[in-house]
């Protein structure tokens, strides 16, 4: 049931929804190419679900338009849109069997009975529920219901598939299995997918591109690598992935630009400043990912061996959390910032760090990400 390539180009133009009891949306625009898997990522209440409802046709935007394959569908009622949707609570019809649930969109399209039976069989086989056609939804587990909802949304070969936090109700293990399964199915079928989640790991794992929402705006659209390594602003940098953040001002110290943050001077790489185009004297934020940071006890001799320039800050270990594969250290730094550092549990001297110990954290200045401090802040 592969779709023709080129069907499912979706363009959202300046969607706004400021009144009413839904989450607001301000001038949201997004271009989705056929076959893309786009995740709408953001904290709850940031407008992701509102976007999805507008695309599905459940909500009429106050301004802006939805264009599907060149046609403006903003005013088309949902039942004539041909867009599949998977709801967070699955929204399976409890009084119908699994097979009748999946057959529903085909029956609405008045397909011949034999076609319906064949397509329903194929769709259930696709989600590995071929033997469950006669069951009622409530007799299935959460993961199975999820797959029925997926089969039902795919069976009529919609040009776009919408998913609203489809894995939100599942436990962690099942969620990870389902992530892979959904990616595989969507890749096989070749649909354009808009996928809403507030789970940044899910977004990074599943998407071809991510749109990061904040307060009704789309802050950045980009590949997972873009979002993680080249965030557009401080909000994106801190919402996606863990990070240590320094707020301050860019200053020229000697021949190099530094971030002056509460009396701590941190060298910045020319490339990282060049990317955001901030001038000397401008307020800025420096974001460092935990995997870029190394940690060592204070006064343990050997300093920079000169290969690459490092930035270093002193601090005191506040907390040590053992997580199996890594040990997570929370370090209170000079200047008031808090660092998050992951080390291997048997990572030599650093691995045996204890709360209260004085340490120095260091990172390659090329790994420091400079962003403008705008775009809100969040943990």
């Amino acid at each position, binding site marked *: 049931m592969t779709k023709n390539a080129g069907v499912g180009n979706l363009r959202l133009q300046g969607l706004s929804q400021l009144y009413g009891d839904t989450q607001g949306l301000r001038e949201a625009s997004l271009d989705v190419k056929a076959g893309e898997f786009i995740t709408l990522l953001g904290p709850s209440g940031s407008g992701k679900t509102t976007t999805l409802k507008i695309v599905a046709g459940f909500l009429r935007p106050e301004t802006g338009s939805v264009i599907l394959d060149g046609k403006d569908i903003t005013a088309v009622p949902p039942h004539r849109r041909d867009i599949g949707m998977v709801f967070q609570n699955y929204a399976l019809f409890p009084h119908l069997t699994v097979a009748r649930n999946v057959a529903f969109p085909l029956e*609405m399209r008045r397909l011949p009975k034999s076609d319906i039976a064949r397509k329903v069989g194929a769709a259930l086989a696709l989600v590995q529920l071929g033997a469950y056609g006669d069951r009622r939804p*409530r007799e299935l587990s959460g993961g199975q219901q999820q797959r029925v909802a997926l089969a039902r949304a795919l069976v009529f070969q919609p040009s776009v598939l919408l998913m609203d936090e489809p894995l939100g109700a599942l436990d962690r293990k099942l969620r990870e299995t389902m992530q892979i399964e959904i990616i595989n199915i969507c890749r096989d079928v070749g649909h354009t997918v808009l996928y809403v989640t507030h789970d940044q790991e899910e977004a990074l794992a599943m998407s071809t591109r991510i749109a990061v929402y904040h307060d009704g705006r789309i802050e950045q659209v980009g590949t997972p690598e873009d979002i993680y390594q080249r965030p557009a602003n401080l909000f994106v940098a801190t919402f996606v992935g863990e990070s240590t953040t320094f707020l301050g001002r860019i200053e020229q110290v000697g021949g190099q630009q530094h971030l002056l943050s509460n009396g701590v001077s941190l060298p910045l790489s020319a490339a990282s400043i060049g990317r955001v185009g901030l001038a000397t004297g401008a307020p800025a934020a420096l974001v460092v990912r935990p995997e870029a940071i190394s940690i060592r006890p204070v006064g343990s001799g050997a300093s920079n061996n000169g290969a690459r320039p490092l930035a270093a800050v002193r601090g005191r270990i506040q907390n040590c959390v053992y997580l199996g594969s890594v040990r997570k250290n929370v370090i209170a730094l000079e200047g008031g910032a808090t660092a998050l550092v992951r080390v291997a549990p048997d990572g030599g001297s650093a691995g045996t760090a204890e709360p209260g110990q004085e340490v120095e954290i260091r990172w390659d200045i090329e790994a420091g990400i400079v962003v403008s401090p705008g775009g809100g802040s969040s943990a």
Partner: protein
Amino acid sequence: MTVRGLVAENGAAAMRRRSSNSSGDMVGWRRDWLVIPGLAVILIFFIAPLGVMVWRSLTDPSPYNYVRFADEAVYPRVLLTTLWMTSLVTLNCLLLGYPYAYLMHRVTRNWQWLLAMVVLLPFWSSLLVRTYAWTILLRDGGLINTVLIGIGVIDDPIRLMGNATGTIVGMTHVLLPFMVLPIIASMRRFDSDLSLAASGLGARPIAIFWRIFFPMSLPGVMAGCLLVFVLAVGFYITPAILGGRTAFFSMLIVVQVSRLLEFGFGSALGIILLAVILVIIALGSKLVRLDDLVGHSGR
């Protein structure tokens, strides 16, 4: 009390019952003694008189009472008439009650209040008063006939009471809330995401109603029908006042007991009516989960 309040309270009561049954600790055991006064009331005022009735129906003068019911054609015939009229009343309640409940389900909160008031108001006024009020409308010189004659639709008054019409109109009015409440309870349980899902899957509004909404409200419909039917079979005051000589089964019992003083035969008729109701409940409970009668949600 609003519909929601009523339903919620019943639901909560059911939950409490369940949790108290499951607690096997000392506190729970001691708390169970509290049921005794209530149980005693039920035994003394409900179960014991029923026992007396069964006893009298078999001994006053003899079990022949039951043979007599079958022998004299009038009794089975009145029973059948009663069941037939009860069916009509149930159907009327359904035809009026379902659209009413649906309206209540769709309007805004303030209108919901108003509509709930209108349907519950009869609950709070005396059955006798309501029934006599109908005579003002229905009798030959009543409001309806006067108006119809006045605007020239009819020349002579049509008989609206003192026959089956009067009984059915009056009983439908009295029993309507018992249809509306279970239906609105089951509609309330409807998850509105299901209609969004259906419309996203290509269903037009009319298809959403018939394919999704209506089938899912059927438990409430069945519960309402069962409730109305069972209550209607034993009705006395309304058919007695509005039905005239159209015999309702309960009227036969009253005649035996209070006019002919045939307590034994009257008891036998009562037991037969009770048996019919129990059979209906037994059949009905195969279709209805009794939870739906009190609006307890259990999907």
